[in-house]
């Protein structure tokens, strides 16, 4: 028994490729068969149309769906709104997260760091839907925000059911996804680099701009992948908390799926897919994947 086991181990020790293959084949095959195949099929289906008699997909190649997207001005503004808000959310999250990450990595002691960690992780784990819903209550005309503003003698904000509300809620919900990688990146910058910068006469701003930021950029970009992509693909927050002009790409896709117009939905879904594809390639070039 034991010799058999040794021989077995020995085989894999001599033939490392066999072991690699054994380890990698099941996960990658499963992944390719389920996920990649679906993705490719979806992309292909955007070039198809719906059969008039059976409502089934008719496999005749054409670009009508894309032509309709291109010609309908409404779809342009929906796409720009989605991408614009996703970018705004990412910027806001980076601005909120960076100082906190810095505090956690370099200023806080062991206890307050642990506290900050739990404080960041817990909201991440509580239900997404409930967090959207509570913000809706806060931003309501009669909500906590207006109540507070009134108590301190300020005019009501009334941002409920606007794109501002959508932006704010997304910023809130995805913030932990930015904080954690930014913290990770900041924590890895050796103290000596910053000291060296200061010794060489650089001020705080220069050190930040020339040393800290370049070193932590991969972390920020890693975080931005999540904040940007998660906003780009969402439809529930605009649905629950948006106003009369808050349609996202996701909402149109969702509606079209319900309307049995899957090929058109697939065509519109190709927009965030393409945007994220480009984004990921740039992120990879900037080394964000190492920081993930």
């Amino acid at each position, binding site marked *: 028994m034991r010799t058999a086991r040794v021989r077995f181990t020995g085989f894999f020790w001599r033939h490392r490729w066999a072991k690699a293959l054994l380890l990698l084949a099941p996960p990658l095959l499963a992944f390719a068969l389920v996920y990649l195949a679906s993705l490719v099929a979806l992309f292909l289906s955007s070039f198809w*149309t*719906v*059969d*008039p*008699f059976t*409502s089934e997909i*008719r496999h*005749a190649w*054409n670009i*009508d769906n894309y032509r*309709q997207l291109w010609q*309908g*001005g*409404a*779809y342009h*503004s*929906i796409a720009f709104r989605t991408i614009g808000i996703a970018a705004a959310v990412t910027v806001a999250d980076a601005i909120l997260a960076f100082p906190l990450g810095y505090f956690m990595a370099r200023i806080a002691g062991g206890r307050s760091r642990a506290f900050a960690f739990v404080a960041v992780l817990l909201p991440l784990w509580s239900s997404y839907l409930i967090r959207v819903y509570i913000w*809706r209550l806060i931003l*309501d*005309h*009669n*909500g906590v925000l207006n109540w507070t503003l009134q108590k301190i003698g300020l005019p009501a904000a*009334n941002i*409920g*059911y606007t794109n501002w509300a959508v932006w704010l809620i997304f910023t809130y919900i995805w913030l932990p996804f930015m904080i954690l990688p930014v913290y990770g990146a900041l924590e890895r910058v050796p103290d000596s680099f910053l000291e060296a910068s200061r010794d060489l006469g650089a001020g705080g701003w220069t050190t930040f701009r020339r040393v800290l930021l370049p070193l932590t950029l991969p972390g920020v970009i890693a975080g931005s992948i999540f904040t940007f992509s998660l906003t780009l693909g969402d439809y529930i927050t605009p*649905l*629950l908390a*948006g*106003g*009369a*002009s808050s*349609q996202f790409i996701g909402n*149109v896709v969702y*509606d079209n*799926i*319900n*309307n*049995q*117009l899957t090929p058109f939905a697939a065509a519109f879904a190709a927009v965030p897919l393409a945007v994220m594809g480009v984004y990921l390639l740039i992120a990879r070039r900037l080394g964000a994947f190492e920081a993930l």
Partner: protein
Amino acid sequence: MRKVTRWHVLLAVFVAALCVPASGVSAGSGLPTKIGKGEGKLNLIAWEGYTQGQWVKPFQKKTGCIVHAKYAGSSDEMVTLMRQGGGSQYDGVSASGDASLRLIYGHDVQAVNPKLIPDYKNFIPALKSPPHNTIKGVHYGISLQWGPNTLLWNTKKVKPAPTSWSAIYSKAYKGRITIPDNPIQIADAALYLSKAKPSLGIKDPYELNSTQFNAAISLLKKQKPLIKKYWALASDEIGLFKSGDAVIGASWPYQTNTLKADKVPVKDTIPKEGATGWADTWMMSAHAKHPNCMYKWMAWISTPKVQAQQAIFFGETPANTKACTWMNKLSPGSASLYHCGASKKYFNSIKFWKTPIANCGNGQNNCMDYTKWQQAWTEMKG
């Protein structure tokens, strides 16, 4: 290749359906004559609130059919769900009139025998064989409940009380108006135009030629800057009225009652132009795996007490006239509040949701079909 739209589908099946008997669906043939033993399980697609514990639990106890319900948010979603995975996923659906015909012509639902539903004989005459679920005498479902889409307003903020749908197109309430996020809402605009602009010649708000359709869309486009939010969910509108974000809007009686119960000063009315509305039907999937349980369910949901419970819970009108006394027993005054046993005149004053198709009903095929409605709605909202 030319774009193939749903109206081709509908047109084609419509024409096919007109040439029926040949297609094999004829009255009485092949329908079960008694309900067999329950299969122990029942998968339903329902409007939320249609499968509440208070009447589902006794049903499960009585029949042994365990109910699994999936809530759908729109008629479109219901149709999609019914077709999913070859249509065998669900046994039944509580379809509104704008979904029922699509399901019938799409062969997604099967004919049912109303003789197996003891309370069927107590239904108001208009819902025994209504055109949205009965084709050429073949019943494709059992009517359930119905109700009007109403004009709802905050009595403190909107004075004098509005009597016309013009209120939701008026600048007076800019930024405080809410209407449903649903393509079928185009019919509400058309209904208003049929009275406000008689020159357009709109007779049926679901049968619009391109001129009439464009007029409705341009009205909605003008209305858009006045809208606080297009509500996708009943609770959206309730929330908007509670918080004061909206003071007037298109609504269901359900919202009015919920708001009144919460002491929000609101009132609703059917404006002088009339109203659109819904009439729901329980339909059985053509590929139902638990048909006996589905029959048992349709029979159960038609009984007076259950009809009354659901009517009160959702705020709608039961099909079963015997439910009215139960309604008053469960919640005094609710029968008249929800028009239980209402006159034929009241029933006919409501323009019930139906799927717009290219066939205008006058032999012409120049009406805008529902795919166009959906696209126009998305593009109108932008």
